[in-house]
């Protein structure tokens, strides 16, 4: 069969060899004209200037910054560094200046800097801040405690972010993470207290989260109510319910419902002996180890399993999923409930991991932060984990520096992660892609 195409193909062979239109090919002839992105260098410059001015100029030239690192390993002693503040800060500022200069150069030649470059810059800035903050103080900054505390405080954020990621990938925006955390904290504590067993409480916590997930699925998937509205209102509902039950039943019978039980802290042999890292990662509450498992499992299953492929298909192109026989709305409902359960498990942090009785609104907005972490982490478990750790770090920094006693008002320390989030959504997130059909109802 000789068609025109064959005669065409000779003349066109060269052209067709290139990927066709629609592919992100780079036409080198024109690559030089791509618009420059000034965001990163500008942010770097602002931070570097702030660092140089505040850190180097306000620090007492003769002061010392004490930093203590506990290795936690038998046989290896703890470290106590006394760094000359001004010299250390000057070196760090020089590094930041160099990194900023390179960022400007990259922008001018129309290249983008990598995320890791930005993370590296951020770490140096934070380190400089810490050196500045503890300069001249008598007590040392406890780095190991800072890190392990940060990990611990990140736990509800990480669970919440995982819940958000599961729901978003299946196409449901989960703003009710806050309510799911709170519900998990409540039911976990109450059941733990009733059964006098923290482990049974831990089993109950995801049930509460799943119930909130059920309601989210009912309204968002079944009745097509906007996901953000349902999420916000469900948070109010759970807050109202738990507040009400706390003020009535829990308060009246606190000897039955409000006995605090804590999950054990387990030191994992061998692993915990790794210097510094071991103490930080492997001498934690059991809930932390469950968190590791959940993150690893989700990262693998979401992108390599049948379950993950199908649920992401529902979030990316529900109609395509429907046409190959996947029950879109059922998949959405089930995974939304699963997401709720994961967040509920995270809620156990507030009561069962810390060993506290339930208190009113004890999740204190962590659910919203978890949502931000999930977005900051590019909708992926791995990224969300890192972002959640960042928030946990900022949270704990305030505690750690409070111990050392520094001049910065605690409110500004507490504000930092929120400001970082705003900077991030304004600067970074535009480049990451959300699941295409998140937040839309599938109406068959």
């Amino acid at each position, binding site marked *: 069969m000789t068609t025109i195409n064959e005669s065409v193909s000779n003349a066109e062979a060269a052209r067709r060899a290139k990927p066709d239109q629609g592919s992100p090919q780079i036409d080198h002839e024109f690559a030089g004209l791509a618009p420059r992105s000034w965001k990163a260098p500008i942010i770097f410059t602002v931070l570097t200037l702030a660092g140089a001015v505040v850190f180097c100029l306000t620090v007492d030239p003769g002061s010392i910054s004490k930093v203590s690192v506990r290795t936690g390993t038998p046989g290896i002693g703890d470290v106590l560094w006394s760094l000359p503040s001004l010299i250390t800060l000057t070196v760090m500022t020089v590094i930041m200046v160099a990194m900023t200069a390179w960022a400007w150069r990259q922008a001018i030649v129309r290249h983008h800097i990598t995320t890791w470059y930005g993370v590296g810059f951020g770490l140096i800035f934070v380190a400089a801040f810490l050196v500045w903050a503890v300069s001249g103080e008598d007590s040392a900054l406890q780095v190991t405690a800072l890190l392990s505390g940060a990990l611990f405080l990140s736990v509800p954020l990480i669970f919440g972010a995982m819940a958000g990621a599961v729901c978003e990938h299946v196409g449901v925006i989960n*703003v009710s993470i806050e309510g799911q955390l709170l519900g998990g904290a409540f039911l976990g504590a109450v059941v733990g207290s009733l059964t006098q067993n923290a482990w049974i409480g831990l089993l109950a916590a995801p049930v509460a989260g799943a119930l909130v997930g059920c*309601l989210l699925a*009912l*309204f968002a998937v079944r*009745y*097509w*109510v*906007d*996901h*953000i*509205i*349902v999420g*916000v*209102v*469900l948070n*109010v*509902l759970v*807050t*109202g*319910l738990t*507040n*009400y*039950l706390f*003020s*009535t*039943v829990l308060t*009246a019978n606190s000897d039955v419902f409000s006995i605090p039980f804590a999950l054990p802290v387990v030191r994992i042999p061998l692993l915990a002996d790794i210097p510094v890292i071991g103490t930080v990662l492997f001498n934690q509450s059991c809930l932390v180890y469950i968190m590791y498992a959940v993150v690893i499992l989700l990262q693998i299953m979401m992108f390599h399993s049948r379950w993950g492929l199908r649920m992401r298909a529902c979030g990316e192109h529900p109609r395509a999923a429907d046409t190959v026989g996947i029950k879109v709305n059922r998949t959405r409902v089930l995974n939304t409930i699963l997401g709720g359960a994961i967040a509920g498990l995270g809620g156990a942090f507030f009561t069962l991991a810390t060993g506290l009785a339930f208190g009113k609104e004890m999740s204190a*907005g962590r659910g*919203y932060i978890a*949502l*931000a972490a999930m*977005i900051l982490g590019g909708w992926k478990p791995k990224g969300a984990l890192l972002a959640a750790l960042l928030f946990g770090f900022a949270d704990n920094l305030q505690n750690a520096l409070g111990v050392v006693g520094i001049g910065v*008002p605690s*409110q*500004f320390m*507490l*504000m930092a992660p*929120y*400001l970082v*989030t*705003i900077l991030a*959504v*304004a*600067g970074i*997130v*535009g480049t990451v892609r959300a699941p295409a059909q998140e*937040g*839309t*109802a599938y*109406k*068959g």
Partner: protein
Amino acid sequence: MTDIAPTAPQAPNWRATFRKITNSSAVTVVLAIVVALVVGAILIAAADEDVQRTVTYLFAQPGDFFVALGQSIGGAYAALFQGAVVNFGASSSGAALLPLARTVANSVPLIFAGLALGMGFRAGLFNIGGQGQIMLGAVFCSYLGFALHLPVGLHVIVCVLGAFVGGAIWGFVPGILKATTGANEVIVTIMLNSIAGFLLGFLLTLQSFRVPGSNNPISPMVDANALYPTFFGTPVSVGFVLAIAAAVGVWWLMERSTLGFRIKAVGANKDAALTSGMNVRTTYIWVMTIGGGLCGLAATAPLLGTPSQALSVDIASTFGFDAITVALLGRSKPLGTVLAGLLFGGLRAGGYMMQAGTGVPIDIILVLQSVIVLLIAAPPLVKAIFRLPDPSRRHKVRRARGMKASVARSEVTA
């Protein structure tokens, strides 16, 4: 070329939700309130000790149980009603109507903030930042109120303007970020709420914001000259008149002004608005700034109202979040928002009375509010609960009805 012509683009879903709410009949609203009251009743009964005690011998003496049930629920709701509308036990008719006056006074911040959020909704913006905007408004309003000493009349005006400016600044931030970088306003406003809280906390550590000589993080009271004049010694003040005026103003803005046309166009179809030469970015900035200002005005209610409160970290109460439900219930329209504000203001006023009188915690009001809003957003659920015929489910089909409606329309069109 399709048989199914291109249907309207997937509008952010909650716009469809608003349309749904807008179309929901008064019947749905009433039924939603009924369901919410039933849910509330179950909670009240469940937490009541008499009910708990009598239920243990329910089958032996069911009478006791039902009496206890009736007393707990009836008592609580009676207290709620008396606290919100008319107190029959009052000595004078003025005192009898005092609850109603409290309801009206309570509704003021909810109306201001509800108008703001409703306006945002209609522009396609989900402003969750009412809380932070109220706090900033409160900072400005309070400072001007206690630091300045101006003549009667002028002082109130200065404080009100200050509240507007404070809130507007906090609304401008997410507006400009959305306009210039596309930053999601939901996330930014949530973050700004927390930041405002910390900022307020910090300001209250400063001597200039404290009662001289005091160590408590509470500011001085505003000058008497800065307070809203009240009517007949009731809590109802000029603040309510201002809130009504704001509602009229928002109505004019949305229905009769060019900016309002733009706001609605951007909210209904951003792409078409852009293609028609409208500046979507400045529209976002305007909506968020004006909305922030209105939220700021909400702060005048506790600060300049009677009884007046001093600036503290709790000054915004939960007005910003309640306003979301108020705006949703009010269908984002000014009149609806005023009515919804009165309803929720009444629930608040009655809730305190209920808590004081019968020991039922006021937190139950949150449950009632959220159940009402959830149900109103999903009319088919209300109809299903009451087994009302749902016109959309007449045809026996596998698929849900929305698709069909849209297909039907496009099929006809194509």
